C-alpha cells in the first residue's frame, strides 16, 4: 500500500488517520493538550473530503452522548479530550459499554487530580483500565508511544471496537500529542454507505421498515436476572478480548536480567534508559505495553522466570505497578518509579531508580 510521509504532531496525525480510517463523525470539545485534534479537523474540513461530520459540542458531556447516538446508528464515531474532560465523559462511556456500542475515545492525559496542569501525565491509568464510570465494564485500552502509533492505533481501534462492539480508549499523553515525528499515513478508506451499515450490523438502529424486527439499544434492564445475564455476557466478551488481543513490544529482553515495564512516553524514556544501563554493564530490557486492557499478564509471568527484577516506570505515583505486581505474584522484586504532576522522568533518573530500588534494593 502506498503510504504518504508527513511531519506531524501526534494530535494532528490521529485526526488525519481517523479521516482516512473512514470515520463518519467526530464530536469533541477543546482542552489542552489535545486541542489540535479539533483544530486540525476544522481546518481540514473532512465533510468536504469524505462526508465525515466534525462538530464542536457545547460540552464534553454532550460530545460523548452524541457519540452514543451516532454509534447506535452503526457509524464509526470518535471523540477526544484530556483528563478533566474525560472524567466528564465517564457516565456516557459506561452507558456505551453497557449498550455494547463501538466507538473510539482519545485521552491525551495531563496532570491531575482536579484541573491539575496542562503538562503530560499517565495518572489516568486506573480510570482507563479499572472502569472510570460505574458498573462492571471494561474498555479496550491502547497506548501509543509515537506519532506513528497515534495514526496506526486509531485505525486498529475502530476495527477492535466493531469486532467486539465495545468502546476503545486510546490512552496517550501530552508528550505524544504535542511532539512532531515522521508519520506514514494510510490511503483513504471509503466510509460505509447506509446500506452497507444496514447489512453488516444487525444491531444498528438504521430505521425500522415494515416487516423488519425492532432493534433496541439500551443499557437498562430493570430485572436483576436479566441484568445479571447481560453482565455474564459482557464478562465472556472481556475474557475473549483478554485471550485474543494482548499486545506488547519487547526491547532487548532476550538476555535481560532486569526489565522496565512501561507504556506511552515513559516507554520512550525507558528505551533510552536501557541503552544507558547497558553502557554501564547492566543487562536491562524493556517490556512496552501496547494494550493496557487486556494486560499482558502471561508475558510478565514468563519474564519472572528469566529476570531478577522489574521496575514499572510511569508518570503517576504508582498505578500500573499494581497490575505488574499481580502478574509477578511475588516471584521476583517489582517496584514502581515515577515522576508526576506534569513532570517527566529522565533516562538518568530511571537508571538510578533501577540501581537503587531493584539491583541494590
Amino acid at each position: 500500500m502506498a503510504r504518504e510521509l508527513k511531519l506531524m504532531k501526534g494530535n494532528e496525525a490521529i485526526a488525519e488517520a481517523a479521516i482516512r480510517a473512514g470515520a463518519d463523525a467526530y464530536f469533541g470539545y477543546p482542552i489542552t493538550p489535545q486541542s489540535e485534534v479539533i483544530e486540525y479537523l476544522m481546518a481540514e474540513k473532512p465533510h468536504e473530503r469524505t462526508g465525515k461530520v466534525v462538530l464542536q459540542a457545547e460540552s464534553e458531556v454532550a460530545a460523548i452522548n452524541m457519540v452514543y447516538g451516532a454509534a447506535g446508528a452503526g457509524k464509526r464515531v470518535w471523540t477526544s479530550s484530556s483528563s478533566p474532560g474525560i472524567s466528564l465523559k465517564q457516565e456516557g462511556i459506561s452507558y456505551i459499554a453497557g449498550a455494547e456500542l463501538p466507538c473510539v475515545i482519545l485521552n491525551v492525559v495531563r496532570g491531575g487530580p482536579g484541573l491539575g496542569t496542562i503538562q503530560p501525565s499517565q495518572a489516568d491509568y486506573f480510570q482507563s483500565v479499572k472502569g472510570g464510570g460505574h458498573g462492571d465494564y471494561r474498555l479496550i485500552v491502547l497506548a501509543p508511544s509515537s506519532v506513528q502509533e497515534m495514526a496506526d492505533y486509531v485505525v486498529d481501534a475502530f476495527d477492535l471496537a466493531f469486532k467486539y462492539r465495545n468502546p476503545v480508549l486510546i490512552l496517550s499523553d501530552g508528550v505524544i500529542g504535542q511532539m512532531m515525528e515522521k508519520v506514514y499515513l494510510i490511503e483513504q478508506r471509503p466510509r460505509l454507505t447506509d446500506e452497507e451499515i444496514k447489512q453488516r450490523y444487525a444491531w444498528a438502529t438504521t430505521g425500522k421498515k415494515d416487516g423488519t424486527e425492532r432493534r433496541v439499544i439500551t443499557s437498562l434492564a430493570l430485572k436483576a436476572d436479566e441484568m445479571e445475564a447481560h453482565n455474564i455476557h459482557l464478562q465472556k466478551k472481556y475474557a475473549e478480548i483478554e485471550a485474543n488481543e494482548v499486545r506488547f513490544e519487547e526491547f532487548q529482553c532476550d538476555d535481560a536480567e532486569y526489565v522496565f515495564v512501561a507504556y506511552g512516553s515513559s516507554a520512550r524514556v525507558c528505551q533510552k534508559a536501557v541503552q544507558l544501563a547497558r553502557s554501564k554493564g547492566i543487562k536491562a530490557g524493556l517490556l512496552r505495553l501496547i494494550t493496557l486492557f487486556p494486560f499482558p499478564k502471561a508475558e510478565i509471568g514468563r519474564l519472572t522466570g528469566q529476570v531478577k527484577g522489574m521496575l514499572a516506570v510511569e508518570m503517576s505515583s504508582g498505578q500500573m505497578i499494581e497490575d505488574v505486581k499481580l502478574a509477578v505474584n511475588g516471584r521476583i522484586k517489582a517496584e514502581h518509579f515515577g515522576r508526576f504532576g506534569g513532570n517527566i522522568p529522565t533516562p538518568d533518573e530511571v537508571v538510578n531508580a533501577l540501581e537503587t530500588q531493584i539491583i541494590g534494593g
Partner: protein
Amino acid sequence: MTEEIIIAGFGGQGVLSMGKILAYSGIMQDQEVSWMPSYGPEMRGGTANVTVIVSDERISSPILNQFDTAIILNQQSMDKFEEAVKPGGVLLYDPNGITRHPSRTDIRIFQIEGAKKAADLGNTKIFNMIVLGAYLQIKPIVKLENVVLGLKKSLPTRYHNLIPMNENAIQEGMKNVTAYQPA
C-alpha cells in the same frame, strides 16, 4: 549519527519554527526526527523551547536532560540550559541581551550576533535562519540543499518566494559565527 539539540529563547524569535525546519531537513535526507516543544506554563510566560533530535536510528526518548547542542537566545535559557550541554558538546548563543555569559570550559562555545545581523539586513524575521546558519556551520548535520527542501515542505506555497531570502540568511549565519572563550 544522533544529534540531540535544545533551542531556547523568547516566544516570537522563531524558536519552534527553526526546530521544525531542522526536523524537515532531516526528513529530506531520510533521517529519523523528533520535535518536542515546551507547551506548558513556561510558554505562556513568554519563553519557548524545543527539543529536536535528528538521527540515523530509531529515536528513543524525545525528552532529554542532556544535549549535544544548546542554541540559546535569551538569559533565562542560558541560566537553564548551559549546564545541560554534554561535556564536549556545543553551546551556540546570541550575545544580544545576555548579561551573564557562559563559563564552562569543558564544552565548545560559539556566538552569533543574529539579532544585530538581522537588524543590519533590515529584516528581523530572518533572525532564526541566521542562527540556524551559524549552527550548521558548526555542525553540518543537514545539507543546505535539504534545508531548502525542508523550507519548501514546511512553508505554504504562497511563501515560497521568501525561500531565497531565508537561504541568504542561513549563509550570513554561516559566515558570521565566532568561537567564544570564557574569561
